[in-house]
């Protein structure tokens, strides 16, 4: 009994410590955002209600969500076929693919963005008047900077590779693919109707991690001079400190909700029949 109690206390202590580690800063942030501790100010939720009307909020958020969607799509379109090929046809290339996907971990975002901006600055001088010039201009279009999607895709590769690879490890890909093929399914059908549904959890996790990455990315976007959500928050915090904290809190909440949604989607079994 005594032992049981002691482990019980130990557990509570650990829980309390971790809880404090997470909750104290959050509580402080909330307190600040509603005006506790600020002299000459009444308590209130103006910071929160003001978010939606704030200058640039909608634009930056839409931009971020569009970037996130495009990044997720690009990551999956690149990685899923590559991993299927590596597992079925070229197992010897596996290490190579893994190393390539892990490279962004050792190349810091700042180095990446330095390289990108150097190319973007150097390019127009040399290719003026050629189709390449237009392509480079399109890459940097302010409404939808494709260059950010490319950069984010690179940055998401390590996480995406890990989660997808785990997903592939959990299924017997070769047997599933061959069973589908012997049932008369061509390659695209095999991928869509058999491989992807069995990777659902891994795909959702990848999507979520990529989304989280794009939501929080600051360096690359800021240096290249775009204003997605994270950059906007920092920009606002200079002028409206309370609102920027409020926005972070809302962001945190939204991220949690997304996480819950995705894990729920991963757990839900589809009772409907396809046939």
């Amino acid at each position: 009994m005594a032992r049981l109690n002691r482990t019980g206390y130990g557990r509570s202590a650990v829980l309390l410590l971790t809880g404090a580690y997470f909750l104290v800063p959050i509580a402080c942030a909330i307190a600040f955002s509603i005006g506790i501790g600020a002299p000459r100010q009444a308590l209130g939720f103006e910071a929160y209600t003001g978010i939606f009307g704030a200058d640039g909020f909608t634009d930056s958020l839409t931009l971020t969500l569009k970037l996130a969607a495009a990044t997720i799509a690009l990551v999956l379109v690149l990685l899923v076929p590559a991993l299927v090929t590596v597992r079925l046809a070229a197992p010897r290339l596996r290490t190579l693919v893994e190393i390539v996907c892990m490279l962004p971990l050792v190349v810091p975002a700042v180095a990446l963005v330095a390289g990108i901006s150097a190319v973007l600055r150097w390019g127009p001088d040399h290719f003026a008047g050629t189709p390449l010039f237009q392509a480079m201009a399109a890459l940097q279009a302010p409404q939808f900077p494709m260059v950010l999607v490319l950069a984010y895709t690179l940055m998401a590769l390590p996480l995406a590779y890990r989660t997808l690879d785990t997903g592939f490890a959990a299924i017997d890909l070769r047997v599933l693919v061959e069973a589908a093929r012997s049932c008369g399914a061509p390659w695209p059908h095999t991928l869509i109707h058999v491989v992807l549904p069995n990777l659902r959890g891994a795909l959702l996790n990848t999507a979520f991690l990529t989304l989280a990455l794009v939501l929080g990315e600051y360096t690359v976007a800021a240096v290249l001079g775009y204003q997605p959500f994270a950059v906007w928050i920092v920009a606002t915090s200079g002028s409206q400190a309370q609102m920027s904290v409020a926005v972070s809190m809302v962001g945190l909440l939204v991220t949690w909700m997304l996480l819950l949604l995705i894990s729920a989607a991963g757990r839900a079994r589809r009772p409907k029949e396809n046939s």
Partner: protein
Amino acid sequence: MTDLLTDPESVRPTRAGSTVEFRGLRRAFGTTTALDGLDLEVRPGELLALLGPSGCGKTTALRTVAGFERPDTGEVLVDGEDITRVPAHRREAGMVFQSYSLFPHMTAIDNVAFGLRMNGTGKAARRARAAELLELVGLANHAARFPRQLSGGQQQRIALARALALRPRVLLLDEPLSALDAQVRLTLREEIRRLQQQLGITTLFVTHDQEEALSMADRVAVMRAGRLEQCAPPAELYERPATAFVANFVGVMSRIPARPGADGTTVGAFGRTLPVHGTLPGPVGTDGGSGEVDVLVRPEAIGVTADGDGTSQIVGATFLGATTRLTVRLAGGAEVMADVATHSTAGLPVGAKVTLTLPDRPVLVDRHSWGNGGRSGG
């Protein structure tokens, strides 16, 4: 209407069974040669078992028919037509795999209907046909279950129904029973055979279990190191194995030390001279031995008679039911197995002196193997 649907006749393939032919198939993986010039013909509507030790290339041969493996040289013909370059999904070959291969995210009936969904069959039609096939494999009431809610045997039955759904030209079975426990394996073995005969579908059945092959197949093809060793009906394979390898792999063989005759066509054993079936293995004395050979005889073909002056002695007896397997030590020390009817063992107690006799027909001969207690077999 329901009667019509569940009648096996209604799922009979429209075409009569197809032929499958392997011509000089060769396939190497790096330094391993999986298929080394395989020639084999499967007749329309027959169940042909591909039998051989693990690693002899059975699965590779099957996968070249399914289209998952491309031969380095040689070709596979179905109904006389070279299909070597046809992609897997257009081969019309149904396959059941060794490991459980049902799509985990689909119910049993969706699994069976998958092929029909791929070829664009309407929803109502494919559900009806899938239900009919589930009925055929005896799992009509498991239609809504997911694979993880089914036992191994049930999963393999559904895999079989899925393979049959498109009325394939050939059915390919790659050790479909090897992951199941003994009792289920026996029932499913009979069931596969019954279905195959009902549907008259040409079937290639891969197994390393000689009993399974002998009990199910119309003909058994014994493979060794990527080649065909012998292809014959089970009884012929058992009674007249063409080579020592087949003899050892199929059933049990007793090895009796013998002396090759000078002309290479006869062999001496138990004081008699017997004609050799096939050829003597290698020139006498070149294999580092004394030039001695073993005669291979089925245990039940050896006659045992009690003989006080005999030079052999019974050293053991194993009750097998109707027969008893005696272990007899010969004068030279070698031990030989002989099966006798159990009712005649009263006069043959352990320790008795006996004389052994061989049947009067050509015998198979193999290199002498030392330290072999007369036991060999698959």
